[in-house]
């Protein structure tokens, strides 16, 4: 890699153009893998170019990125379909170049040209690229790269909304439970990002899609046999419901007897971590000032058991907030 940054002065736009030409070549000559000397040569050149894009955008060991260079690069990049080519050709690149490409795409999502985020506009006009990125979770080789790119793309509110409203949302319930830990966790990180980043959009999505979403959430994630799925889901449910922007959704959730039953089962989970996270959701049922009769009935039926359980429910670390919450829950249940 030596001497890479000292090559003859090419403008950032030159580097983008060359990258694009090489990608087009690669896209057209995709049939045979390896063996072809010319193709290998082009590949090496492409790798070099993508690395150079990265060093322009991030700076290298010696120098910080230069704004003007970044602007030029971004402009040229989105002037044509470079992003599409790069995403489509990613599976053909070697690991190091995939990583560089991922970092380039990530960085470009934040670049502004005359105070406009060009990437966002491009993606809005090319939403099918999001479909491609999401389907990456079905391919172990590229899942982590597409996953990282996807999370950067949904920084744009309009793009996050597109994904939320698409049928892809249902697929996440499968992806999160993939056996491969890296990929399942990546999918779950993206899922979380989609459902937390743009508050208003998320609140709207949740109230419009309440029924199917929480039914999937309860039956597939909270009742999953996979420990990690369950633990992440219950933690995430707590975070989601406790977010002020989701208060309407929260009220609806804690007014359901079925949800309460699921949470009470989770309180008895063999995992302490899951118990604790479940408590943070359960307390919302107890603290609800307008409990529906069906919720009250269940709490009353199980009152003595619940109280006995909470009396012995401790966490390892001293936590004033936890103790106070527990106190409150005990008071609420006793008073019913």
């Amino acid at each position: 890699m030596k001497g890479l940054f000292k090559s003859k002065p090419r403008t950032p736009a030159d580097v983008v153009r060359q990258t694009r030409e090489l990608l087009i070549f690669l896209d057209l000559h995709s049939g045979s893998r390896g063996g072809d000397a010319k193709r290998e040569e082009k590949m090496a050149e492409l790798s070099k170019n993508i690395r150079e894009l990265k060093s322009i955008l991030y700076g290298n060991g010696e120098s910080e990125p230069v704004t003007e260079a970044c602007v030029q690069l971004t402009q040229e990049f989105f002037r044509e379909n470079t992003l599409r080519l790069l995403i489509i050709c990613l599976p053909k690149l070697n690991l190091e170049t995939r990583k560089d490409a991922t970092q380039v795409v990530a960085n470009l999502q934040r670049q502004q040209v005359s105070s406009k985020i060009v990437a966002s506009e491009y993606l809005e006009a090319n939403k099918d690229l999001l479909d491609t990125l999401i389907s990456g979770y079905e391919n172990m080789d590229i899942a982590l790269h597409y996953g990282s790119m996807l999370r950067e793309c949904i920084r744009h509110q309009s793009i996050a909304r597109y994904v939320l409203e698409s049928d892809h949302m249902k697929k996440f319930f499968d992806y999160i439970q993939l056996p491969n830990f890296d990929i399942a966790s990546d999918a779950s990180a993206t899922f979380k990002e989609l459902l937390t980043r743009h508050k208003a959009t998320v609140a709207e999505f949740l109230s419009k899609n309440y029924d199917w979403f929480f039914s999937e959430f309860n039956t597939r994630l909270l009742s999953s046999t996979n420990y990690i799925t369950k633990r992440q889901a219950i933690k995430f449910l707590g975070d989601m419901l406790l977010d002020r922007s989701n208060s309407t959704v929260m009220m609806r959730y804690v007014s359901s007897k079925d949800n309460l039953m699921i949470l009470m089962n989770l309180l008895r989970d063999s995992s302490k971590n899951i118990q604790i996270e479940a408590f943070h959701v359960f307390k919302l049922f107890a603290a609800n000032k307008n409990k529906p009769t069906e919720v009250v009935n269940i709490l009353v039926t199980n009152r003595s058991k619940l109280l006995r359980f909470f009396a012995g429910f401790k966490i390892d670390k001293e936590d004033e907030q936890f103790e106070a919450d527990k106190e409150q829950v005990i008071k609420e249940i006793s008073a019913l």
Partner: protein
Amino acid sequence: MAAAAGSVGGDDHHHHQQARYPLDAGSYRLLCKIGSGVSAVVYKAACVPLGSAVVAIKAIDLERSRANLDEVWREAKAMALLSHRNVLRAHCSFTVGSHLWVVMPFMAAGSLHSILSHGFPDGLPEQCIAVVLRDTLRALCYLHEQGRIHRDIKAGNILVDSDGSVKLADFGVSASIYETAPSTSSAFSGPINHAPPPSGAALSSSCFNDMAGTPYWMAPEVIHSHVGYGIKADIWSFGITALELAHGRPPLSHLPPSKSMLMRITSRVRLEVDASSSSSEGSSSAARKKKKFSKAFKDMVSSCLCQEPAKRPSAEKLLRHPFFKGCRSRDYDYLVRNVLDAVPTVEERCRDSTQLCGCARGARCVSPCRHASSGSNVVAAKNRRISGWNFNEESFELDPTDKPPEQQQQQPCFPFHHDNDDDMVEHEQEQRRRQDGNDGSSDVAVPHLVTILGSLEMQRDMVMQVLEGDGGGGGETAGREEMLVGYVRELEKRVQELSTEVEEEMARNAHLQELLHERACENHTDSSHTSGSR
């Protein structure tokens, strides 16, 4: 690096064709335990569908691990995306009940630390050091080129295979400079939460301000976290690792970890490879077998241990150092015959350790699988890492009383300079606090450590007074040094006392918690409230 690529088949190209390791526990046959820690056990195992290929499986108990799932994922992801023949890469990982199984290459000879402990307590022969360090450097070159900082280079994280090849492990604290958001955007939920972006906008993107690493190997600027991390911090740790391999232990390791940090902050540590030649009369160390190291080696190490990060060579440059030029492929054979064949197998080491660990506390536990001495807070903090499989790197807490006092002079270290003392005070406190926070039992230990801190501050003030009183006379340096050493010993004794107290307190606390937990469990089983189905 280019030269390295060809030999074992450039990893990149073969990446896609790699065998797929199955993602279910049933496909693996556990052969024997080769290591264990507080929240993880490492097995040697056979992957049945792949012709019973031998692998190492680290089974992490996620219920007991202190790390949250995001941290575990971040590390797994880092490991999955690194591909270099000198970097340990997981084959795959999947869940088995509440455990995460990380399937990794089996490195038959274990870690260099474990090799030192099981046969080379006084260090390895220089030619072996050269080959293993060269491979380690190649790994570092790769990581740095990726913009990744390892942050915990040490013998315990360098794994050796039966053919002498080496892989760098443990990315639990590694960080990528590409994962920080550019200074314009603040809310970035990417995988960098554990490394908060630099506070000052002036800091370059390659700076990290959180504490990471293991005290003895830590570079001064990592300790002075206000300077932030750079890749040069890894070079410092690399130099310390070289000394560790040469002497069998890292310099200053006779002091407790926090102490070693304090020393490095308040003093300028001058380290030389040849300990006996360092400052004050090494005559007393004559009893110890004197080791001769080449000038190239000493030169290489001292370039790494330059106080100024900028003056330390890059990994790439270091690789071209004459010390590594002399490496020949037959050195691997030498390593295999004279070192690897001379130590017990990892399986045997593990068996040994069960007994070893039963022995008195404070004895140097040497195996890679120290038995759950869960009282040791540092161990707990370490064990959440998933990539390495050497667990007891922390068992270095040498008991100073074991050693004759001369040992201290043998340690290549000191003279004090007071030039950068004034701005240290604050950071040193901060560091100590952070360090304390790291060890997982902060709630118990904090009041005590605060006491220690108070005491240390008092002591430091005394040292400062001495330094100021000196007024710059050059003549009586030796006398002053002796006085300082005296103070340091006092300080050390005090720290020792206090940490014993803290440990006792923690043991008490652990006991109480156990009782509480038991009671909670009883109550819990009692209260098996059937959820509102009726």
